[in-house]
């Protein structure tokens, strides 16, 4: 069967989805610009450039049939692992931290763990597409092994948030593909126990990671030592969220002043900035938009019959939903603080590029209908 041309793909692509993504990215540019007032770099302008690059990457992804990515999944997987390993050797840290998450390429810094998220979606989708063993308990071992390798590598950077994001992705893909829920439940229980062991056995978890959990549990404490030191990020974030008005401060000086004391406000803590700019009414609209965005992603999965495409759409919807939920939840004190950007909004070239590439994949899935030679649609 003849492959679709780029023109046909563009014609059949879900432009509403792309439009929504651009709206979200536009909001991101505005918020990043407000957040970068008083900082030595105008992050807003840079973010705009990355949006342009992201859209180009999205269209590029759209132009290639997604099944090619699926077929090349293990190659991509190996390349991703190589990059993650390279980070541990030649990686560099951020300006403000002692972590090691980036690789310097020319004048840019790339974050391989961001790309690995999309690669993992492709790898898992491809694996589940051609296998049925995961429906048995023992069959879960391989997909889990596939996932745990990058998880461990990412945790070494350390980047707990990104690493743990891959776990729900795996669970969701297995669940929608028809894995037994009680099998997944047992594994989840085991994971929970492992998490507790990680926390309580000395040396397995970094002290700062434990502190974040402690701060989360003690966030209502009146202890100024906690508020000013370990817990100051959460406290400041809640201060901005709690003091936001109903209609927002707009993008003027007032908004910039209101978020001046917020750390990492242009990246991980962009949600409080958005709340300050748009107010609680705007925040409600934003959440509805995001929900609509996720729903459109899932609807793509429903509309196609090809299993790998379905899984790709579901996986990417899960990625976006998980990242967004965790990011926003941590800024309001519902989850411990982790380093996780808000897709399309947070400043960061790798994050934005990955998001648009992921979106391009889903658009690709929605536009392409390859002939199905294998299994049915997981029904």
């Amino acid at each position: 069967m003849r492959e679709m041309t780029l023109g046909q793909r563009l014609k059949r692509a879900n432009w509403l989805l792309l439009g929504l993504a651009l709206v979200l990215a536009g909001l991101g540019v505005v918020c990043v610009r407000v957040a970068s007032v008083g900082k030595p770099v105008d992050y807003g302008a840079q973010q705009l450039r990355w949006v342009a690059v992201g859209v180009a990457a999205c269209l590029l992804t759209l132009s290639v049939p997604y099944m090619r990515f699926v077929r090349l999944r293990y190659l991509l997987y190996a390349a991703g692992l190589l990059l993650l390993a390279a980070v541990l050797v030649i990686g560099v840290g951020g300006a403000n931290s002692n972590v090691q998450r980036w690789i310097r390429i020319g004048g840019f810094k790339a974050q391989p763990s961001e790309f690995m998220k999309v690669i993992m979606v492709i790898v898992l989708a491809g694996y589940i597409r051609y296998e049925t063993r995961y429906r048995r308990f023992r069959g879960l071992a391989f997909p889990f092994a596939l996932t745990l390798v990058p998880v461990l590598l990412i945790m070494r950077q350390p980047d707990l948030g990104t690493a743990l994001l891959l776990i729900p992705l795996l669970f969701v893909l297995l669940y929608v593909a028809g894995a037994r829920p009680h099998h997944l439940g047992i594994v989840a229980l085991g994971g929970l126990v492992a998490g507790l062991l990680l926390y309580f056995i000395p040396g397995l978890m970094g002290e700062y990671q434990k502190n974040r959990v402690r701060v989360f549990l003690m966030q209502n404490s009146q202890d100024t030592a906690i508020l000013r030191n370990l817990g100051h990020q959460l406290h400041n974030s809640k201060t901005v969220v709690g003091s936001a008005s109903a209609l927002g401060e707009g993008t003027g000086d007032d908004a910039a002043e209101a978020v001046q004391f917020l750390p990492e406000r242009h990246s991980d803590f962009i949600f409080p900035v958005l709340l300050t700019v748009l107010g609680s009414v705007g925040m409600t609209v934003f959440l509805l938009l995001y929900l609509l965005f996720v729903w459109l992603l899932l609807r793509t999965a429903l509309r196609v019959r090809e299993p790998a495409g379905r899984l790709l759409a579901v996986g990417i919807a899960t990625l976006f939903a998980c990242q967004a939920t965790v990011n926003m939840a941590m800024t309001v004190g519902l989850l411990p603080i982790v380093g996780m950007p808000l897709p399309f909004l947070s400043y960061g070239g790798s994050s934005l590029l990955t998001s648009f590439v992921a979106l391009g994949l889903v658009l690709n899935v929605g536009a392409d209908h390859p002939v199905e030679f294998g299994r049915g649609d997981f029904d």
Partner: protein
Amino acid sequence: MAFRRRLRRLFLLIALALSAVWLRSLELQVVEGAEWRAEARKRRERLVVTGGPRGKIVDRDGKVLAVDRPMFQLAFVGWEYRRRGRLRCTACGAIHYHDVDRAPRRPRCRCHEESSRLEPLALPDPSPLEDLLELPTGELARRAADRLQKVEELVGARRERLDAEGRPGFLAHDEERLYRADLLHRPYVIVPRIPEEAIRLLELDADGRYRGFRVRTVLRRHYPEGGPASQLLGFVSVVRDREELAALRRRYARNVSLDTRVGRAGLERGLEDLLIGRFGRERQARDTDGDFTEVVWSEPPQSGKQVRLALTVEACRVAEEVLAYRGRSTGYFPQTQPSGGFVALYADTGEIVAWGEMPRLDVTKDLDRIFSSADRKARFDPAIGEWVLPDGVDPPPGQTVDQWRAWLTKPASRTLSRVSQIPVEPGSTFKVFIGMGLLDGLRQMPPGTSLPYGDLFGCRGLDGYPGCHFHAAVDFVGALEVSCNRYFAYSLRDFSPYWKVYRRTVPVLLAGLGFGRPTGVDVWGEAPGTLLRDYVDFDLLDVVHRACVAVREARGVSAEDLAMRTLGRVPPRVAGRDPRRLGSLLEAVLGEAVGVAGAAGQVALTVQPGERNPLDPHDERVLPIRFEVFARPHPQAAAPRPPDLVKLRARVRRLGGRLEAEVQPQGVVTFSFELRYREPVGRAPGEPNLILPDDGRNLGIGQGPISATPLQMARAVAALANGGRLVTPHVAISADGVPLVKPARTISLDPRDVDLVRAGMRAVVDGNHGTAREAGWDAVPAEVYGKTGTAQVGKWWLPGERPGKGPWHHWFVGFGEARGFRPLAFACVLHARTEGAAALTSAKAVREFLTWWYTAGPDTAGRRR
């Protein structure tokens, strides 16, 4: 369908998660909104507190004695110097700031004029300012660079500390960033005083030439008259540490910060409640650059109250001049600095009208030492009763630590007032009050009892006893006139029944006159003096027993054990059959025990030699040796444990039996002196209130266990002048025009006794044998009542000197009355090296002051016209 169902569940889960975020956001905004908004306001705004100036102090004539004056400093603000570039709008002239490391954020001015263009202003070039400040070219830049380097060092040190604590990198970075910003925003003084031309130059700096350099205005206390008595005015300095700050904030409604100057001594401290200024407050908001430039709300600072004093500068100067003249001209001071104090107050109200000190504190030089960083970092150690410096802190330049301590706390210090802070033995001036006590006790005796020695008392037959003035037989008035030592000393040592009465009535009367406690004057740091109100007499056995108990409790050993340890140190002259054993026992109980007990502030012990009745040569009785124990709680001592009386008595009997059998009385006395028993006990060496508790009868002549300040003496004689009202001396008479009233109370003085004492005091000045007659009172147009007195002090007044060789205290106290004048009570003390002409010198000093007071003083203003 199953896939669709699973997706629906997944979507529902996502929707639920986002709903949770939405609800939590609303909770923070609606339910907890007020709290977070207040927190946000706190983060975006800051409260800048400006200290209010201290109130002025003026004398009775309105002459300013203390006032706050602004002083200008050049401060360096690293934040501005480092990163703030300036752009000026060519249309409206508004100045815009930007980070010099990057392009301006705003390309246009807010005025939006067509012709608006932002032109960069000059980079810092402070050379004109350096010329004005007479600094070498580039010096300001060098100091600025030093400061910036220091900031980086401090930040680096903080960073190392955070790393050592294992703080995560991003948190450490945040804290480091905030710390650096805080240091860079804080004005740092790089030139402590700048001229007005420099201020103008900085104010007119429209083109940013002196970017990063600011004028900082601080208030300094200024004493235009340099006094009068600087010890009276005292001084101020900034709050020493956070602990002190917390205490002061509780007291002064938070109007105190670490920059606030608070009174440290004298009136500045005594009137702190009135003088302290009220803070001004200004709430500032951040601009978009994160700097606090917008004033949201402000409340100006308020000055403290203006306090008016009763005294005049002129009166104080006269007082100090007569002290200085008499101190130097009489040749009393071949080796030591002259010192003394004079105070005069209205006897009817207690308003202090003159206050003189010698030596006088030099506020321009001496206070610089007090303001030194050493003083600010010093801590008072109650264990040793002295100020100590922490490690690494040096005393002020040119002083050793010991000198510096002495400067602050020793009696010789200039910072201490000789009028209110150094109590000394009042000597024979005390006979006035002892006499009142004798007369008071007389009424408690059977009807018909006369004065202790009948109508007349003669010393002629008592040659060989010390202290005889070789005068004719005297009555009570005559005894005061000639200042007969024996009359008053033996009154308290008599064998007759008078003795036991006087030993009660005299201390009661002295306490009634306010001795032994502060007068309540508004000058801070007044010494209470010493009055042994609660002394208890014990016989030798009691003393021994109590000493043993004290030793055992203090050391955890028995007296016998202690005695065994000292066996090798017994002089052979101790009487008794077994000198070694007795000696050790005595040494243990007298030396060690009293040392321990005395140092703990429990007892002061004095030895009274056995003696015969000096009035009756036929009386063969010999008074037993008496060891007097004076209960004297020490403020730094733990509360003494009450003794177990039953066990006490048992030990007394056991020890007493041995001592009575083995020790001859004279041996005990001799040995007690060998043990250097005459030295003061119960107080740390060098403290101003020195007492020699070696002779109980010294009390009768104002020596031994008694001390008073000139202020206390003036107040007590004021009670004789006004007929029995004990006034509260005070210097301040009004605050912001509102009179300050001080309480007075009536004490029970029999008018007949007062008349008799007044007659004696008048005779001191006017009588043929008056001890102050030679001072020459003809020039004083008033009736002066007075009493001279000379008292010896212990050797610790001057280190290394033997007792009796230190400077003695020469007193003259009394009051003057003249028609049309308010009664004036006064007290003058001169600390002389040897006895010389004794208190007559003080009387001359007073005479000179009174001559001025009644002929040219402030109360004569109307008459002169």
